[in-house]
């Protein structure tokens, strides 16, 4: 009984996330995910691949709050969104960059699924 209570008090508070707006498109080479995360710098960014899922997390930690708020409508929660991956993606070649609050994740397809032209002898 005592241990259960202890456990409850030590669990961290549930984190709140907001889903970033994304554009996703596919080309012959692979997929591109663009996610809007204003207020997130390179240091606050986390992209994890696990099984057939990619999770993008952006933390606004670096942003400073100047003075007293008079009016707030921006969401203060961190960003998170999970996507299921096409098995054709070569997970070892996934790359990500962030520029002015827009995260771009490039997910290339593995060579074997890319369309190839076979020359006839």
């Amino acid at each position, binding site marked *: 009984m005592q241990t259960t209570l202890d456990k409850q008090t030590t669990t961290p508070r549930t984190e709140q996330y907001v889903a970033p707006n994304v554009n996703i498109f596919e080309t012959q080479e692979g997929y*591109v995910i663009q996610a809007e995360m204003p207020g997130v710098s390179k240091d606050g960014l986390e992209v994890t691949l696990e099984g057939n899922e990619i999770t993008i997390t952006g933390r606004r930690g670096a*942003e400073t709050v100047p003075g007293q708020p008079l009016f707030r409508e921006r969401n203060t929660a961190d960003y998170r969104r999970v996507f299921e991956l096409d098995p054709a993606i070569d997970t070892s070649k996934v790359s990500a960059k962030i520029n002015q609050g*827009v995260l771009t994740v490039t997910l290339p397809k593995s060579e074997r699924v890319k369309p190839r032209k076979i020359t006839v002898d």
Partner: protein
Amino acid sequence: MNIVRWNRPQLSTWGGFGGLSTLRNEIDRLFEAPLSELARASQFLSGATPAVDVYEDKENFFVKAELPGMKKEDIDVSLHDGTLSISGERKSEEKVENGEVYRSERFFGRFQRSVMLPAAVDAAQIKAQYQDGVLTVTLPKAEEAKPKQIDVQVN
């Protein structure tokens, strides 16, 4: 006097779900179409009017606006009659050649947002900075708008 045997209303008689579900589908269809249109429109509208925060300290007002993925040159900041306007155009970065689009939630196009400032500011000293997709405009308060300490004199 006409004595007619009372019949249960149609909806509560057990006639299978056939009739009921088609009615339901009709109603759902009626509501879903305009609602999804509305949701889409509001999403685009929220992109066209970026979210802002306004802060103040003793010396300045600060306006922070969310403008992800812009170029510095494409953002216009202006002050007119105590109203700060942030406007510009978000251009779509690159066109996807022979690509298939799965999701298109980002807003591209012209946007505008105005914030009425609660007190006079020194227009010549306004600074704007763009970092991590957030525009921060620092507006120093005009001398007359700053809080002043007045000494009470005792004779």
